[in-house]
C-alpha cells in the first residue's frame, strides 16, 4: 500500500497574466507547492527524504507569455468539493494567477497531463505590421514549405532547427489589428515555439526587425 497511487486529483485551470507571466516554470511549481500547503489541502506527497506535493503541470509556458488556458493536476488523498478547492487555493495565489475552474475526479495510474500534445497561441500584432493579405500569404507559404529552419538557442542546443514538423497551423483570424492563431505540437524534439514561428514569418515577409508583437497568449492546450 505504501506506493499506492493517489485516488483523486484536482484539475486546476488558471490564467497567468500581467507580471506573473514572468514567473518561470520551476518557480511557478514552487508557487503552487507553497499555495497548496497554505491552503491546507489534503494533498498527496511523494515518498522519500524530501517529500513534495504531487502536482503535475501541463506543458511549461515560456516565460513572458500570457496563459489563458493553463492547468495542473494536484493529487489528493481524499475528494473535496471543487468549489472548496478553488476558494481555498485562490486565496493563496499571488497577483496575476487567476483560478477559473476546478474539477475533482478519480485519478488513474496515468498522469492526467500526459495526453496533452498540442498548444494554441494567439499573437496580436501592432499597427505597423504588414497588411492582412501579405500576412495571410506568408502564413500559407510557411505551411506549404517542406522545411522551416530557424535558429534555436537553448541551454542544450544552439543551431539550426527545422520547426516545420512542429507547426500544425498558422492562420490570420482578424485583420485589424492583425491576430494570428498559431498551433504547435508539443512532443519532445518535434516542437515549434511561437516566437520561432513568428520569426520565420517575419523572414518570409522580409522584415529584418521581426514582426511588431503587441501580445502573445497561449489560448489552448489540446
Amino acid at each position, binding site marked *: 500500500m505504501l506506493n499506492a497511487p493517489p485516488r483523486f486529483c484536482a484539475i486546476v485551470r488558471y490564467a497567468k497574466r500581467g507580471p506573473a507571466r514572468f514567473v518561470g516554470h520551476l518557480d511557478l511549481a514552487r508557487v503552487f507547492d507553497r499555495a497548496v500547503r497554505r491552503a491546507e489541502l489534503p494533498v498527496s506527497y511523494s515518498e522519500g527524504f524530501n517529500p513534495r506535493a504531487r502536482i503535475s503541470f501541463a506543458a511549461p509556458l515560456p516565460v513572458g507569455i500570457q496563459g489563458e488556458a493553463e492547468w495542473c493536476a494536484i493529487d489528493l488523498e481524499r475528494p473535496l468539493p471543487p468549489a472548496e478547492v478553488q476558494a481555498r487555493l485562490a486565496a*493563496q495565489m*499571488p497577483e496575476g494567477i487567476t483560478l477559473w475552474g476546478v474539477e475533482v475526479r478519480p485519478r488513474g495510474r496515468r498522469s492526467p497531463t500526459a495526453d496533452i500534445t498540442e498548444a494554441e497561441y494567439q499573437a496580436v500584432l501592432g499597427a505597423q505590421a504588414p497588411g492582412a493579405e501579405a500576412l495571410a500569404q506568408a502564413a500559407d507559404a510557411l505551411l506549404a514549405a517542406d522545411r522551416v529552419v530557424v535558429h534555436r538557442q537553448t541551454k542544450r542546443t544552439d543551431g539550426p532547427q527545422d520547426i516545420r514538423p512542429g507547426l500544425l497551423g498558422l492562420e490570420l483570424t482578424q485583420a485589424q489589428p492583425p491576430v494570428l492563431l498559431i498551433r504547435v505540437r508539443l512532443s519532445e524534439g518535434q516542437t515549434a515555439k511561437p516566437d520561432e514561428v513568428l520569426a520565420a514569418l517575419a523572414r518570409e515577409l522580409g522584415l529584418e526587425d521581426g514582426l511588431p508583437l503587441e501580445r502573445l497568449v497561449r489560448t489552448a492546450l489540446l
Partner: protein
Amino acid sequence: MLPDHLLAQVQKPGRYLGSEFNAARKDPAATDLRMALGYPDLYEVGMSHVGSQVLYHVANLQPGVSCERVFYPGLDLAQFLRAEGRALPSLETGTPLGDFDLVGLTLQHELTYPTLISLLELGQVPVRAAERSDHHPVVIAGGPCAASPEPLAGVIDAFVLGDGEEALVEILDALRPLLKAPRAERLAALAGLPGVYVPALHDPATVTVRRRVIRDLGQAPVPQRPLVPYVEVVHDRAQIEVARGCTRGCRFCQAGILYRPVRQRPPEQVRTLAREIIANTGYDELSLVSLNCPDYQGIGELIDGLHGDLGAQRVSVGLPSLRIDTFSVDLARKVQRVRKSGLTFAPEAGSQRLRDAINKGVTEQDLLDTVAAAFSSGWHLIKLYFMIGLPTETDEDVLAIPALVRSVARVGREVLGRKASRLKLNVSVSNFVPKAATPLQWEGQVPREELLRRQDLIRDAIRDRQVNLSFHDVRQSVVEAALARGSRATGEAVLAACRAGAVLDAWNEHFSFRRWQEAFAEVGLDLDQEATRDFPVEERLPWEHMDSGVSREFLLAERQRVLSGELTPDCRLEGCAGCGLGCAREGAAC
C-alpha cells in the same frame, strides 16, 4: 516592478516583480512618508536576510509610512537601466529610488560598500551626502559595519548603531513632520536621536554614539507574514531569530561584541511564530537563527516542541550554528533525521595555545569526541572552519591545522570502519580580518604574501583525497581589512573603486584586486599598508565615537590575555566578566 520590455530581456525576471506573496501593499493615499529599504547585493542574497524582513515589517507597521524594497539588480538590468537613463525602481510600485523620502541601507560586510554606492547611483540619488538637496531622500544605514562608519561617512546621512527595531521607529517619527522641511532640519532631528550618527553634524573627535539595545527580544516585532520569493533565494526557508547575542567571547569576533547581551525569545513565542509563519508562507523548512543556537536555554525542548507542532506538515527544522560538543551533535540528530548535509564545526585555530589566545576554549579532545559522535550517528561529511593570520600565530600554530585535520580524518576512518571510504572533510580556511570594537581592533592584518605563505604551509601538509581544502581569497580579505578600520580618506578610495567599476565585490567573479590597489593609490593611500597597520593604543581610534557599550578597558584587558593565553569564561555561565555593558548591575536577563 519593471516595464514589460525590460522584464522580457533580463535574466531571472522573477526577481523584479515585487508581487511576491506577502509583499506589503499600503495605500499610497494613506501614507505620507515613503521609505525604500535597500540591500546592497542581488535579490537572492538580500531576500535571505532576516534583519531586512524585520525592518520592512516594522516600517510598514507604522501608520502613514510605506516601505518598499530595492536590491542591486543583475548586471544585465543595471546596464539596461543606465542605457535608458531610467532610475532603479522599487520592487513594489516601481517608484524611482530618488523619489523616496528615506532610503535605508544595510551594512552587513565591507565588500558590499561599492554595491551600496552603485545602488544609490543607479537610483539617481547623489552618491555624496553633501551633494543631496532638499528634494533628495535622506539616506540612513545600519548593521555591523556601522561600528566603523568613517569610510561611508561621505555617503550616508545618518548611521544607526545597534538594534534597529526601535531606532527605525524613532527615525520615522522624527522625519514625518519634517518632510517639507529643509534637509538640514531633517538631519538635525536625526542627530538628536540616541544611537544615531550624522557625519554632517557630529564631530567624530568628540561625539559618542551609544549602541542601541532592545531589552526584550520577545517584545520586538517579528513578521508573521514574511515575503515568499518566486525565485530560489540563498536561504529559501522560514527563519526565526531565537536569540540575539553571544557571550562566548571569542576575541576576534565582532558580532560577539556588537550584539551583547544575549537575549532569548521565549520558547512559547518561537513555537507560536513558527506555526504562524509556516501557515502564512507554505515553507517546508524552518531555520532557527542566532549566533549560537546550542546556547539557547531549553533548545532541546524547543526542537521537540517544534517537531510536535509541525511534523505532520512535513516541515523540517534546521540549526545553522553548532558548538564543538557532543550536545550539539545530539541536537543535530534531533533536527536532521536524514543525514543529508554535513555538520559544521569551527575550531578556528589548530593549536591549543592559539585557541586559548582567541578564547575559543575548546580542546582537541572536545573536537575529536564531537566528530566521533557525529560519525557514529551516521554523518560522513564534516565541515571544519579555520582562520589563519591571527595575532601571535607562528608556523607551529599554522601546521597544527593540518595535524588536527589528520586527527579528525583518523577518528572518522576508525568510527566509520567499513564505510570509511565515504568519509569526507571539507576544510575551509579564512584569513583573520581585524574588526572595530573587538579586542583585536588595534592589530594590523598579517601581510598578504605572508598569508599566502601560510596557506601554502597548510596546502603542502594535507595529502588526503578525502579532505577537500578551500581557502578564502587573501586579496578579498586585504580589502575587507582596509575598509573595516578605515577613515574618511578610505572612503575616497571606495568611491574611486566605484568609478572604476567596482560592484558586487563579494562575488569572486566581479572582484578585481588591481582595481582596489589603483583606487587606493589614486587617493594617495597604499592598500596593503591600510590593511596591515597597527593602531597605537594611546590614540583615539577613527571609529571610537561609535560606542558598543563594551569598555575600552575590557577590550585592552582581553587584548593582554591574547598574549597570556588566559581564558575569559562566558559571563552567562560563570558570572559577569565586567565587559562594561553593566547588564548585571541593571539586573537585565543576561
